[in-house]
């Protein structure tokens, strides 16, 4: 799995961080998404798929 984020589309809802805290983080100044790693560990792939599903800005793309 490969994860791509689009910071311009991010709305800082933080749901990705709640779902997959080992993959997503937020910028201190405005809560915009950052990536801790773009190749999630096997145990996180479901959480990353969920993060992409609930992202209100459609800012997360998952390539499988």
């Amino acid at each position: 799995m490969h994860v791509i984020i689009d910071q311009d589309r991010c709305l800082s809802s933080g749901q990705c961080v709640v779902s997959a805290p080992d993959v997503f983080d937020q910028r201190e100044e405005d809560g915009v998404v950052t990536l801790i790693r773009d190749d999630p560990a096997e145990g996180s792939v479901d959480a990353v798929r969920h993060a992409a599903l609930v992202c209100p800005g459609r800012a997360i793309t998952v390539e499988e």
Partner: protein
Amino acid sequence: MTATTHSQTNALLDYPAPRATGCPFDPAPALLDKLVHDRLIRVRLSDGTTPWLVTRFDDQRSLLADRRVSADVTRPGYPVPGHGDRGDSMISFILMDDPEHNRLRRMVTAPFTVRRMKQMRPTVQRIVDDQIDLLLAGPNPADLVEGFALPVPSLVICELLGVPYEDHAFFQQNSNQIVRVSSDPSVPRSALARLFGYLDDLVGRMLDDPGDGVLSGLAERVKAGDLTRAEAAQTGVLLLVAGHETTANMIALSTLALFEHPDQLAIVRGSDDPTLINSAVEELLRYLSITQLGRRRVAAEDIEFAGRVIKAGEGIIFPNEIANRDPDAFAEPDRLDLTRDARTHLAFGFGAHQCLGQPLARLELEVALTALNRRIPTLRPAVPLDKINFKHDNEVYGVYELPVTW
């Protein structure tokens, strides 16, 4: 207008539609019925306009995230059910499109990150515990709205913004008038103007005498020239109103819904598992979906959808409470099931305008519901359900009072 169109117009569903008597937690039956049969319908608002209404979960998600669907309230065709014009000078970023929306929104997102919410938890816990102490020290029975559900989020948002809680009677009353559906549009407009004046004054004072909190941060942005003072005050009004109206209603209505579902209440009271309370909060958000009157948008260009064309300039309404009862998204959607995975619900909306304060709302609901049930395990209603007054005439659904005993 031809005779045919006229008769079609008469057959349209009036929106908003009423809930059924005796089913206070369920959305309007007329809309639930449409969910089964139609993806896209036309409804008639009180002003005679006939915007579209999107019923289903997947469709609401895709259109609310569609850039051709505008939230700009000044665009002709924007559907304003139950309200008159609020006045252009009072528009916050929730009624704007990008890039302006995003520019203003990102100035207030920092306090709502997951990390900052973790830091905020002890403060919320202290506020909740103090309010329970006060409730227990007061008369029994008591009104849970006045004695707990309203002061908790009010105190939290005051702390976060840097607004003096001593003024709570003033801003609670004006917030109430903003969300209450009035036949006289001057009522919400004047309330909005009073709150704007209040926040503008606070921002002005913080320009000279900065403190802690979001308002002070906005004042800094005004000084730096990133933001006008009016924009700062409008954002303050938005956060103050949204910060306590919604959460207060969710706390009270959730408590009542649990009273009415004793098997589910037993799950909450019998569990120490933090993941259970997280799941319970998501399900209560889905099941109760307290924002009424739908999310409102207008098509910025022609959109082909469900075999029809939504024309540029036509209004579109998204009642999230209906999508949250879509059986294709949630099995047995009319059942309150705290153990289900409800995390995809649309109670906070979807797309660019999804609720900014949702991490705070979740935190407050988790802490408040856990503490209420743990510290007052005998908490129960003091009157039967049919004696409770529900907020049918508000943008935000809930109860006016919730008499409880213990």
